[in-house]
């Protein structure tokens, strides 16, 4: 038998299954309506909040832009956010007025935009107990993306909270921090809308996190 201390520590642990791109047909599996497939009994999609949910109803929209400046029209997006009181609602249940988890996609038909119907998230504390500014965690999957890219969307009208947010401040470059701030727009129907464009590469490249 081998001496336990002669075994490299990595051998004491399994290696993670390796990641592969979600590919061009990710919608078949995770966004059936986009692929043109009939829905099943329940689907996970972009309406995270019903009108009954606590908090300010908002729409979040955005496009995804590649290193050539072109729209990426086949991404798949996952969102994870706290409710209006700053609590994550982990128990996914479509009968509840709010779910912390949502999915969306950019398509040719949507003009290359993804969108979420949700409420503005409340403040959640960082690991050290300091408050983090309201934010939505986003993961971007697509053909050509070998492993999902994780980012965070913050709100332009939370300047004070943003300035004090320990995670935003973990991004050293001020100009790069700005890539994480969504712009507020009023839409024609009076709804509050935030726009968050994600740039995968090159000028104005969005900050992506490892955690």
């Amino acid at each position, binding site marked *: 038998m081998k001496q336990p201390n002669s075994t490299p520590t990595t051998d004491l*642990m*399994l*290696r*993670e*299954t*390796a*990641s*592969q*791109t*979600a590919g*061009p*047909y*990710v*919608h*078949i*599996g995770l966004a*059936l309506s986009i*692929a*043109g*497939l009939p829905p099943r*009994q*329940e689907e996970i999609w972009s309406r995270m909040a019903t009108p009954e949910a606590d908090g300010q109803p908002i729409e979040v929209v955005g496009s995804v832009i*590649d*290193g*050539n400046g072109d729209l990426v029209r086949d991404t798949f997006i*996952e969102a*994870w956010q*706290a409710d209006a009181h700053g609590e*994550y609602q*982990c*128990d*996914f249940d*479509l009968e509840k007025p709010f*779910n912390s*988890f949502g999915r969306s996609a950019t398509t040719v038909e949507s003009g290359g935009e993804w969108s979420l119907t949700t409420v503005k998230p409340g403040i*959640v504390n*960082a*690991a050290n107990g300091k408050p*983090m500014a309201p*934010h939505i*965690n986003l*993961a971007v*999957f*697509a053909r*050509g*993306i*070998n*492993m999902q*890219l994780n980012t*965070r969307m913050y709100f332009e009208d939370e300047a004070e909270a943003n300035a004090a947010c320990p995670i935003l401040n*973990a*991004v050293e470059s001020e100009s*790069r921090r700005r890539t994480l701030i969504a712009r507020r727009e009023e839409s024609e129907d009076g709804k509050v809308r935030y726009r968050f464009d994600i740039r995968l*590469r*090159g000028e104005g490249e969005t*900050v*992506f*996190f*490892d*955690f």
Partner: protein
Amino acid sequence: MPLNKGKRFVERDRSWHPVAYTPGYKTAVARSPSQPLVSLQSPSISEVSGPDFQHLRMGSHDNDLLLNYREGKGQDGLPVGERIIMFGRVTDQFGKPVPHTLVEMWQANAGGRYRHKKDQYLAPLDPNFGGVGRCLTDEDGWYRFRTIKPGPYPWPNGINTWRPSHIHVSVMGPSVSTRLITQMYFEGDPLIPICPIVRTLNDPEAVQTMVGRLDMAHSRPMDCLAYRFDIVTRGELQTYFENV
């Protein structure tokens, strides 16, 4: 459980997984960040929590691709192709089962054609095959699908580039930190080592984590073969001491 307050996970080994910029897989070039990822030294609840899908209502055939497309259409045909069971166990890096987690999969039909409005490949659609499945792992982390073996298909990368037979697999795990999308390949397929997407990985051992193995013991005589595909998600670290 998935609130995971104070939990941490083993750091993801980014050199084990494919990096973002992989010119052999051409689409990755314009879609890969040029700046390094910003590492969060102390992940917060936003990173270590995640959704629990035990209350997602699913159909009784959501994990049976032989039957789930014909449902509600008044059809009683079966899909063309080799009938297979795809099954395995989801554990973390310490071998701890990942129970009640959502496993989703999608695939081409036996001819290598996807039921997706964007797929224009010559191979015909199969009127009895959709190509999507989902299920929750059981108490011990096991999942199971019944389907047909997908065919290889050509795609525009090089002049004559083919994907090996593969099933796309998505697993949530206990948190958004463990979120993983991968592909299961079939043991012995000669297209595996020449696939530009497989070759986004640098380590041949990492490729082995994506290969489903023929499992005669779990095959059904006169019915279908079985392929076992175990999935390993990031290890959950135990915290023994309070951080001060």
